[in-house]
């Protein structure tokens, strides 16, 4: 496992280099994204002009204080929400123009979600939980694909267990299997280790690194822990709904 942390300030030149590489094959391209929540008479500006690029095969952490807009940003990245203004190109397509059904289809085919609280269905087995996205797609051999995904997170032997029979770490691994079962190009994880101890956290991050390296899946995760963020290649710092800083942890050449 490579874990070289370069604690250098992101120089303007390096950033431009990165932008150029990213433009060539970017999964996510955000341009001045804002998100305003209307709460009765009050307007809450959760995001106020976020612009960033995330390249295919990148692994990025988003950090920032509570209430800074990280989850709001993740929801927009994950096509669960649409920005109030600005442009979001996902794999080159303008998401703002998509209707609900099209967004659902993008979520189903291209994006895997991982939540802090796992969000597994209580009454169904691990395998059935992993199958869930396939129910809304049109694929055959659902059970096989689910078992394969469980194998990738090392839980093949737990396929028939219900979530209540699994540890927190194992539950999160089931959730990861569910996120990968449709072979997405992007996995989004909002504080995936927030409910886990450091050992389980490391296990989860190892799996993420593997998915990123071996399968080339683009990964964006939100975390409050620097240790977790150090597994990634780049940290985006968010504050008051704006990107305030970026930190490159691995040089361009290291990004595959």
């Amino acid at each position, binding site marked *: 496992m490579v874990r070289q942390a370069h604690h250098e300030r992101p120089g303007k030149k390096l950033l431009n280099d990165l932008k150029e590489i990213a433009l060539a094959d970017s999964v996510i391209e955000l341009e001045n994204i804002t998100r305003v929540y209307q709460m009765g008479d009050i307007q809450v500006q959760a995001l106020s002009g976020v612009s960033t690029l995330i390249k295919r095969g990148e692994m990025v952490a988003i950090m920032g204080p509570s209430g800074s807009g990280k989850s709001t940003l993740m*929801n927009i990245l994950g096509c669960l929400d649409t920005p109030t203004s600005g442009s979001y190109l996902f794999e080159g397509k303008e998401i703002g123009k998509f209707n609900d*059904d099209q967004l659902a*289809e993008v*979520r189903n085919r291209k994006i895997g979600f991982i939540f802090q609280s796992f969000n597994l269905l209580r*009454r169904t087995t691990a395998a059935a939980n992993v199958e869930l996205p396939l129910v*809304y797609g049109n694929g055959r051999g659902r059970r096989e694909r689910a078992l394969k995904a469980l194998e990738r997170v090392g839980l093949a032997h737990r396929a028939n267990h219900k979530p209540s029979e699994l540890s927190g770490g194992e539950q999160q691994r089931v959730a990861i299997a569910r996120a990968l079962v449709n072979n997405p190009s992007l996995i989004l994880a909002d504080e995936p280790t927030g409910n886990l101890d450091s050992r389980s956290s490391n296990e989860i991050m190892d799996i993420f690194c593997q998915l990123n390296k071996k399968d080339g899946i683009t990964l964006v995760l939100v975390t409050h822990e620097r240790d977790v963020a150090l597994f990634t290649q780049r940290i985006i710092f968010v504050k008051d709904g704006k990107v305030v800083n970026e930190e490159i942890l691995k040089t361009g050449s290291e990004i595959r």
Partner: protein
Amino acid sequence: MKLTDATPLALRSLTANKMRSLLTILGIVIGIASVISMVALGRGAQRAIVTQIQGMGLNLVMVFPGATNTGGVQGSVGSQASLTVKDAEALVNSADAPSVAAVAPETRQFAQIVAGGVNTNSSVLGVTPEYQDVRLLDLAEGDFVTQQDVTARSMVVVLGSRVAETLFPDGNPVGQIVRIRERPFTVVGVLKSKGGQITGSVDDSVYIPLSTSQYRLQAQRRGSALSVGTIYVSAANSSSIQQTVEEVANVLRQEHRIVSDDDFTIRTQEEMMQTVSQVLAIFTLFLGAVASISLLVGGIGIMNIMLVSVTERTREIGLRKAVGAKKRDILIQFLIEAATLSAAGGAVGVFFAWLLTRAMTRIPMGNANINPQLSPDIIALGLITATAIGLFFGVYPAARAARMNPIDALRSE
């Protein structure tokens, strides 16, 4: 989401809350069970009545005293007896009524009949010999009232089968004496059982000569025309029965010197059947309406429990949407769940209706043999109704689930 995914899912979520599901479908169970048994009972009753009316003979024309009323047949008005023995004679003898084959006047009174230590209350009918043919009565033993009996005002009686059974449980009533209004009558015959009829049960009546009834049981005023209750006319041909009706009406109008409104009512078997069908249809509709209230309550119960279920499973809905469920998928999932719940109630309801109709065939209803008819089309109707109710009352909760915002749903506790 396909039906093959949604149905097992619905079943699983319903069996997860067995008690709740069971209580929820109770309204549908009761509703469907009562609607179905009502319809089955209505059909059975209709069939029974049609059979009975047909048993009265296809060429039977009935003449009742009193004017035609939109409500149906009306009894005689006040003390004015509009039908008399003279009318009956006129119908037999008139050249204006060639299609009349036979005429049988009838008087009817209710009296206690005593034989030894046993007594019973029954209709005492004053009749002529023609009555047997016109009303299609068969004798089990003995003879019917003869012309001689009528002429002599004999104290003889023919018993309906049930009356005979009640008064003479040991059999052999012929030749025995029964007392009607304290007067002794000799039993000369017993009728075969015929079942209930809308003109009163044949089996529960006894028959005496018309003259005996008029002069010995009823105190008729001397000199006045002898009144009768009903005149039965047998048409020569059942296909030209309408002609018979007109002839009878014309003869009676002449007899009664009527210029404007008739003071009698003529009914044919077909009309009777129509009237009965109409009354029965209204009756069935009314019972059906009462039963549908229970279905309405059942439907609201399903809507209620589905709303609870949607609220409880907000996170699940959010998750499903996050992994790619469209509005339509969520809508279908909850609609199917509501329909399954309701259809299950319908199935249980049909089962109870089946038990109920089986029990009802065993309960004797007067003289009539009403067999509730639980046919496949009624069962299908019940199941389809139940499913439709589930779908209808499931729309609102399902739409609510489908409309949920995935982010808010995922965040809910």
